[in-house]
């Protein structure tokens, strides 16, 4: 029996996220475990008049590349992949792991070399995405491995994922359109703020954001989605922050991270577990000690930590502040090789002040955004 939520997620991706039009080429990337969603997407794309094709691989082959491949094989980029990128109008990435810890034992140096090589391909992809030549959306198909990571049964995890995407409802696109205008209004409002002050347990951090653009993450690039984010001024972060959720980078967890910033840079850092890893990542390059992102998580269907950044960074009532690279489209200048999202839970006792005014308490903005602001900005 087909889960209608899969069909709705597929239709939402095709019609809302990608806005796939007749005659447009869509590639669907997945591992074999994501096949039910691959097939539903393929059907939805056909019905939209698109030209879909599938690019499905088998779980376990990535690890084998590390195990048996030489350095040259590890960093090889196939001419087929280069050729394909130029032909795509749209791309969906379905994350659907059968073992989320498959790379745990891989040599970090080799892993870094692999990622650096793949980045050449993804840079070209992002070039085409940023210029509007192609659209992209990343989503997840629930597997036992992801459920296990989240400490849920598969059935519970499916409910969690599909509720977060709002595909348990009849008309998810209507929901996301409404979310989109809310988030855009909020982003426009935050665009007028010079400084945010974040107060919480062992947290008192001032983040300068003057002149930076806030962006609404409204289901175009990720499903689920639901955040507003920007890149803060690189030299204007002062104070300290304690991250209540474990900070995960490439599958490795660092617990109870505390950071102190001066003049935009981390000057003190400690973690209850994984401190060595934290210190080594801070040494990656000059930008690794500087924030690249500050964001509000606003998807209140996501109410718990599941060890997957696709969901965790959108937990309603949290903020995340990432160390490392920023977003050029926000005005961010940080070009670090690191982008490490760390999540701060502000749902119990948390306050955010904007230029001295309390705007957020215990995980909620105090007032709805004023929708007219969007229009005035557009006109301006």
């Amino acid at each position, binding site marked *: 029996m087909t889960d209608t939520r899969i069909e709705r997620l597929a239709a939402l991706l095709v019609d809302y996220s990608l806005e796939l039009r007749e005659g447009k*080429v869509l590639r669907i990337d997945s591992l*074999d475990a994501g096949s039910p969603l691959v*097939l539903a997407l393929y059907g939805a794309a*056909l019905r939209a008049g698109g030209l879909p*094709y599938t690019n499905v691989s088998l779980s376990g*082959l990535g690890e084998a590349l590390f195990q048996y491949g030489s350095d040259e094989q590890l960093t090889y980029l196939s*001419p*087929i992949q280069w*050729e*394909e990128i130029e032909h795509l109008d749209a791309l969906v990435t379905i994350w659907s792991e059968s073992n989320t810890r498959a790379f745990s034992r891989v040599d970090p140096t080799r892993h870094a070399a692999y990622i650096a090589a793949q980045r050449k391909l993804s840079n070209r992809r992002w070039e085409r995405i940023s210029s509007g030549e192609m659209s992209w959306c990343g989503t997840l198909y629930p597997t036992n491995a992801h459920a296990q990571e989240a400490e849920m049964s598969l059935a519970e995890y499916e409910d969690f994922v599909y509720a977060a995407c709002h595909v348990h409802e009849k008309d998810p696109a209507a929901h996301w359109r409404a979310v989109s205008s809310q988030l855009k209004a909020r982003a426009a409002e935050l665009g007028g703020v010079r400084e945010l002050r974040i107060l919480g347990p062992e947290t008192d951090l001032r983040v300068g954001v003057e002149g930076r653009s806030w962006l609404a993450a409204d289901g175009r690039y990720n499903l689920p989605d639901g955040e507003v984010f920007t890149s803060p001024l690189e030299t204007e972060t002062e104070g300290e922050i304690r991250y209540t959720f474990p900070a995960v980078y490439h599958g490795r967890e660092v617990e109870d991270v505390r950071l102190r910033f001066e003049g935009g840079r981390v000057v003190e850092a400690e973690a209850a577990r994984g401190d060595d890893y934290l210190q080594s990542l801070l040494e990656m390059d000059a930008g690794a000690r500087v924030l690249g992102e500050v964001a509000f998580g606003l998807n209140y269907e996501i109410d718990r930590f599941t060890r997957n950044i696709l969901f965790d960074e959108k937990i309603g009532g949290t903020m995340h502040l990432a160390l490392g690279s920023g977003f050029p489209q926000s005005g961010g200048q940080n070009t670090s090789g690191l982008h490490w999202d760390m999540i701060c839970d502000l749902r119990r006792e948390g306050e955010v002040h904007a230029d001295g005014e309390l705007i957020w308490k215990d995980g909620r903005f105090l007032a709805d955004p004023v929708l007219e602001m969007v229009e005035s900005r557009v006109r301006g």
Partner: protein
Amino acid sequence: MSSDRVLRLADVLVGYSTRVREGDLVCIDTGPAAAPLIRELWRRVLEAGGHPQLRLDVDGAPELLLREGSDEQMSWVSPLRRAEVEKADVRIAVYADVNTRANSGVDPERQARLERAHDPIRRIHFSRVASGDLRYVVTLYPTLAAAQDADMSLSDYEDFVFRAGLLERDDPRAEWEALGRAYGLVADRLGRHAEIRVVGDGTDLTLGVNGRTWVASDGRENFPDGEVFTGPVESRVDGTISFTYPSSHAGRRISGVKLEFRGGEVVRAEAEEGETFLREMLALDEGARRAGEFAFGLNEALTEFTGHTLFDEKIGGTVHLALGASYPETGGQVQSALHWDLVCDLRNGGEVYADGELVYRDGRFLDGVV
């Protein structure tokens, strides 16, 4: 299949059939049911210094396209497929069907259209294989669906597939090389003749083969293997041929096919089962009514029909004829989106004459070359 068997199969495919070398881009095309073989192929290709790339079929996707696709969607070829056939050094295709009859309810005319759309890809593939630019092998991973077609349990079918590949022998590569030399003798012998006449139950067909090359097929392009094939002279196929055993083609079952050729073209065609489909295939394009290939099956380890052409066409004592495209390396000229092998059993009273002389009876060459 047990991991030991899978290992041996992967070893032969990578080390012998496609001879993967350092730097080769190796494209693997198959379905998820072949997962154990894929993992072993992946490892072997990496160990040989190649760059493996996998494209997995998604069960149900082709059927969706056949049922719901518009004209534009049906005639479109993905950039992945095109880039793969143009840029790969090696292709390994593995049949791993989970349902060999999934397309039974699909309009045959639409199937024909889909095949036509992929003709440009087929042409590139055939010509790169013929010129040696692309090394290609097709094999089968035993699935329940294929076992069901063969009227066998999965474990019996696995035994059958394993033995057909001579994989239980100490050195399968050496076995295939030796067989290749023996098949070469048959090819040499047939190459001396201008005309072949096949006579059997419901069959009396004469084919001109003057100037054409007979190719001995030794486990490199098909695995398992065992045939010598050529491309008959296009205007010189005359008479009738009846095909013995039902087969699954393009996701549906066909049986009792009987064809009459005149001047190289099919002038009459009938089938007990799947006749509409047969007619659509014959109407596919200009070349689909012609015999692009004629071949002798020579693999004595294969004795029973199993419903899969990869095996049936190699049964020692059979011949097969393909409607549609010929292989350029034989000198055959037929161009078509179709290449459909149909098998005729000659083990019970069948005869073959070469330039009028009886050379083959009851499924064997009389001078015992094989």
